[in-house]
């Protein structure tokens, strides 16, 4: 069938990889809007639409600000690149493109599945998982850098929520002690400003950290294809495309995850919201400069949990926290399984056909997940409805039961 294509096989696969990478970047954006904005939306510091718009703009700016070359991101966990980040010579062309493609599909499908369940989960873990699965399927266990998995995935995942929770709990305790005598209404009004400032910083940091990952993946694909050779720089169009993808994803607002983080985990008041976002911002920024990049999602969730623990009488819903913990543990293996299956299928069918079929499966699955999500749609209008034991806003549940009766 290759004869009928106006392009060569590697170019066709490259195009699919780029589109898939941008789609991953988009899911990365809407999955993570909650990390920065859930608390501001929950306390009413920002109206939902304004919050996601602000976060989107800051992600866009952040993505352009990133100057680090991110070829190292995938190089931490899978052995498909040499020391300078360039692909291993024997994998140049279709082999590495197929591995990266399968990994991205694993990451996207896991991001969509957790979004459907309203669970925050790390997009980096999803991407790492997908790549690890695809690498194992194609290269065997030796295709994975297990040291890197321990130091860049497992240890940070355990550490992040603990450190973030601790910092946010301390911050919350101190804040409430200091403003104990301030009337509640005046107190909350002031802290809403603090919330907006700290949440903005988290959004900006997210844009720089996360958009970079996709830029790195696309650049890697370009090098594997042979149209880019510089391992020290990223083509401008890649930067611009990734910035736009993550920003538009952010603007779409993963309302389901926002609802879980803002309303489900802890009932949040503005001082807690500021404590949580300030803790997140400080930890994300300091960790990425101390050589231990922590997942924005793990940090933000830990901070919100901590702010619930730090305030006397605040309700922390451990059942929700438990579901998140389970999702975190299975993120990497689940994405890895999908990544491995996609690679196996693409490889079995071979070349253009294999990649096309997997891409089609991705489109169909994404469509099915989206359709399913409409049954309990969470939108800007009902994201703040009272939490009554589940993601679906109460009014909607009642309406559905009436229909079914």
């Amino acid at each position, binding site marked *: 069938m290759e004869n009928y294509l106006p392009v060569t096989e590697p170019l066709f696969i490259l195009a699919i990889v780029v589109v898939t990478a941008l789609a991953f970047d988009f899911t990365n954006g809407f999955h993570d809007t909650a990390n920065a904005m859930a608390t501001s939306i929950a306390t009413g510091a920002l109206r939902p639409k304004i919050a996601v718009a602000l976060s989107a703009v800051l992600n866009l700016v952040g993505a352009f600000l990133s100057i680090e070359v991110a070829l190292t991101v995938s190089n931490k966990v899978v052995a498909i690149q040499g020391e300078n980040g360039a692909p291993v010579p024997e994998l140049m062309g279709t082999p590495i493109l197929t591995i990266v493609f399968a990994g991205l599909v694993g990451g996207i499908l896991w991001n969509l599945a957790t979004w459907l369940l309203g669970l925050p989960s790390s997009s980096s873990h999803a991407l790492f998982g997908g790549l690890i699965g695809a690498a194992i399927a194609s290269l065997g266990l030796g295709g994975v850098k297990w040291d890197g998995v321990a130091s860049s995935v497992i240890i940070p995942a355990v550490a992040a929520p603990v450190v973030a929770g601790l910092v946010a709990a301390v911050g919350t305790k*101190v804040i409430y002690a200091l*403003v104990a005598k301030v009337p509640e209404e005046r107190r909350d009004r002031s802290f809403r400003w603090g919330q907006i400032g700290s949440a903005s910083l988290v959004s900006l940091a997210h844009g720089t950290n996360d958009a970079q990952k996709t830029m790195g993946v696309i650049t890697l694909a370009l090098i594997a294809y042979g149209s880019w050779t510089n391992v020290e720089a990223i083509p401008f169009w890649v930067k611009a495309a990734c910035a736009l993808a993550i920003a538009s994803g952010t603007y779409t607002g993963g309302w389901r995850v926002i609802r879980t983080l803002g309303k489900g985990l802890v009932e949040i008041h503005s001082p807690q919201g500021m404590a949580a976002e*300030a803790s997140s911002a400080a930890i994300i920024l300091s960790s990425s400069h101390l050589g231990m990049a922590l997942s924005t999602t793990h940090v933000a969730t830990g901070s919100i949990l901590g702010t619930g623990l730090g305030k006397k009488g605040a309700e922390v819903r451990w059942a929700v926290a438990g579901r998140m913990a389970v999702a975190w543990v299975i993120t990497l293996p689940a994405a890895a399984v999908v990544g491995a299956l996609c690679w196996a299928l693409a490889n079995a069918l071979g070349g253009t056909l294999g990649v096309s079929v997997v891409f089609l499966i991705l489109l169909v699955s994404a469509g099915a997940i989206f359709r399913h999500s409409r049954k309990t749609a969470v939108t800007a209008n009902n994201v703040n409805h009272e939490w009554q034991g589940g993601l679906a806003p109460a009014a909607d549940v009642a309406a559905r039961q009436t229909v079914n009766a």
Partner: protein
Amino acid sequence: MDIVTKALDALWQVALAGVLLGAGLPALFALGVRSLNTNRVVAVGGGDATSVPSAAGRAGAVLCFTVCALAVLFGIVVIVFGKQLFGG
């Protein structure tokens, strides 16, 4: 084992920076809010709702909020130029 030692080493620094900046700055902000609301001046005939911050209270608050704002600017500098400043 080396990985764990290295991780713990980075971790306590992250925790320290987190407590200083992530908990310290909100605390400073809280101090500003408190200052804004201590010894408020109540207008003649008005209730608490019409009260305004005292001059000293306002000055203290401005100081606290300014330091917080500077810290945010510092954060932005770290985001943009961090790798040059602190190495990767």
